[in-house]
């Protein structure tokens, strides 16, 4: 070897002299865990500062410290780091599972209470504080109509916008559109609600309504559209970009004009992916409460006309029941929440399955 290498020998050797390394025995980790828990229990109960939860939390911290110290002493710093991070990552997982499981469990157990035919066939019209009945029929109608109209508005607009970005857009203008689509994904739902309130409910709707501003399901659909649009544009854009270039070129080579190629070849190829994106956008929009609260107003009775008068939605129903003083309200709120989650999850699962079946999307 050259002399430079010899001089390198003064630094921590890059090459181990032996491949063998001292390792912590297999029982070390469990032993440290038990010791940590025991120590933690002694500390907590000895000083009487808390209960079993604190024992576990303190025990976990002591375990991490003990593991690091032991591994550091036996296996060296790198291995100690590796072990400690590994333990931390695993505990992050456990830590997060607890509340999420609790959410799901509560949702199912509390939601089942009113999950009956009456709930899905009646509205809240003439339901007083002492009535145990009452249902979410009107809210389900509202959700479906609002989300339906929002989809009708956003799908053509979003797909065309994505086509512009991918196929036609060049230069700064297309970049600006892309950039603002990204920015738009970050607009809070309440802001989109306020926008439609300021624009549609307060300014436009008086024209149709004898000069008085009017809440309506359609206004909610507009607000949801503002939220869905960027989502649909982004996903469609991604899907269009995944369409292989030879496919387009094959069509161009046949003398098919570009617009026809896009509509007949590119979009159909990307279609499953586009549909997936649309379904996920719908799932998100269906769960939005704030914009509906601001521009549809909510209501207790069934209103199937989305263009006039107050309309409710499932998420808004949950919120309103949550704020209701009736002792029967929480049960209704949880059942509506369960229905809403079921609706959203069915959409999401269907979208994911579709995406999985389709090779183009990921």
């Amino acid at each position, binding site marked *: 070897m050259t002399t430079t290498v010899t001089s390198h020998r003064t630094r921590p050797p890059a090459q181990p002299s032996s491949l063998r390394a001292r390792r912590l025995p297999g029982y070390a980790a469990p032993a440290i865990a038990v010791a940590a828990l025991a120590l933690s229990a002694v500390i907590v109960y000895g000083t009487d500062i808390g209960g079993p939860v604190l024992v576990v939390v303190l025990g976990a911290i002591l375990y991490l410290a003990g593991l690091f110290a032991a591994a550091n002493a036996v296996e060296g710093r790198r291995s100690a780091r*590796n072990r400690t991070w*590994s333990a931390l*990552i*695993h505990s*992050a997982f456990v830590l997060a599972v607890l*509340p*999420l499981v*609790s*959410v799901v469990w*509560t*949702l199912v157990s509390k939601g089942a209470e009113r999950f009956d035919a009456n709930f899905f066939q009646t509205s809240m019209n003439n339901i007083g504080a002492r009535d145990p009945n009452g249902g979410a029929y009107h809210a389900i109608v509202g959700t479906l109509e609002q989300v339906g109209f929002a989809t009708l508005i956003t799908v053509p607009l*979003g797909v065309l*916008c994505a086509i512009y*970005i991918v*196929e*036609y857009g060049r230069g700064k203008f*297309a970049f600006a*559109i892309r950039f*603002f689509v990204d*920015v*738009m*994904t*970050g*607009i*809070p739902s*309440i*802001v989109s609600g306020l926008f439609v*309130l300021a624009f549609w409910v307060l300014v436009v709707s008086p024209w149709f309504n004898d000069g008085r501003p009017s809440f309506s399901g359609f206004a909610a659909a507009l607000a949801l559209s503002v939220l869905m649009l960027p*989502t*649909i544009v*982004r996903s469609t*854009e991604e899907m269009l*970009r995944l369409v*292989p*270039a030879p496919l*387009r070129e094959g069509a161009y080579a046949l*003398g098919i*004009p*570009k*617009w*026809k*190629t896009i509509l007949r070849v590119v979009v159909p190829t990307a279609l499953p992916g586009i549909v997936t*994106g649309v379904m*996920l956008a719908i*799932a998100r929009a*269906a*769960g939005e*409460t*704030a914009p509906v*609260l*601001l521009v549809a107003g909510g209501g207790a009775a069934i209103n199937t006309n989305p263009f006039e008068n107050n309309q409710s939605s499932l*998420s808004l129903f*949950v*919120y309103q029941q*949550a*704020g209701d003083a009736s002792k029967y309200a929480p049960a209704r709120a949880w059942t509506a929440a369960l229905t809403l989650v079921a609706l*959203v*999850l069915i959409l*999401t699962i269907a979208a*994911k399955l579709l995406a999985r079946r389709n090779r183009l999307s990921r």
Partner: protein
Amino acid sequence: MGETPHRSADAGTGGTRVTQSHEWPAGASARVAEAPVSTRSPGGDGLGGGGALPRSRKFGAERAFRGLTLAAGTAVLVIIAAIAIFLIAKAVPALRANTENFWSYEGWSPNETQPKFGIGTLAFGTVLSAALALLMAVPVALGIALYLSHYAPRRLGTALGFLVDLLAAVPSVVFGLWGRDIFINPVRDFSVWLNEYFGWLPIFGGDGPFGKSIMLGALVLAIMVLPIITSLSREVFLQTPTANEEAALALGATRWEMLRTAVLPYGRPGIIAAVMLGLGRALGETIALALTLGITFGISFNLIQNGGNTIAANIANAFGEANETGRGALIASGLVLFTITLIVNITARAIIYRRREFTESAA
């Protein structure tokens, strides 16, 4: 929100190869394709929008379709501009009527004959709760994402990843309801405990009551954005090229070192995007916080006493009783929220775009 926004993230990270590989041919073919259209006799393809346009024969279906897509693209810019314009238009009269300083007054009584309202406490509460939520959620979310992508057995990782994606789709009102009905109990107990032993710290001080506090709101927010950040970062981590991971391992890296050398740097733009998206959700979250915060006015760092309020939660709570000026005041507060999220978003996008250029020029 589940799936889609992450695509913005992978366009900057994993998606580059696919995107690049066809972007050039698509651009090239555009030139090829336009020639036959303009030379062809217009009578041959009098389909579509041709009839709706001026008689000039240069205008064909191609132009019409192109114009249609351009209009759709422009609509995005128009909507953003319209949001700003209408919010400002409705906010200004209310701000004029305000008899106190909008920035510094601590309180919200815009419905009186002498309207008094200030954004300070609300903006403070919004930023505080969102920051706390991210502080708690991001490390855990990255931990879970790494667990799912690089520690868990592959099948388990995929299955759990799917579950996380589903949780990311659960509406916020459900988390709010859960926070208000269930989670408040352990949080209250914890608050009492903190108050007893750490009451000397101002953030844990006070005499109660405890429970519907900034802490509860921030925790619910954290739990809510956790699946979102996890889902997006997991996607990004999974896209790390195996070749780079193997390169790190072949240099003798431990698993953690492999993650540090290959996976985390590669995923950084995606992580930033995920965190910013989470921040955006946390800042704008309305219903979950309207259900879990104590709704008081006043700037306080106390985390455990009943209280706390945010711009969005205040809009949801105060909207019902608002008169004309009240609505305007709420819209003004929404404008402030819009500006805050806009700044956060533009900053995040700028970071991502710059990094994307770096990696793309490199690739």
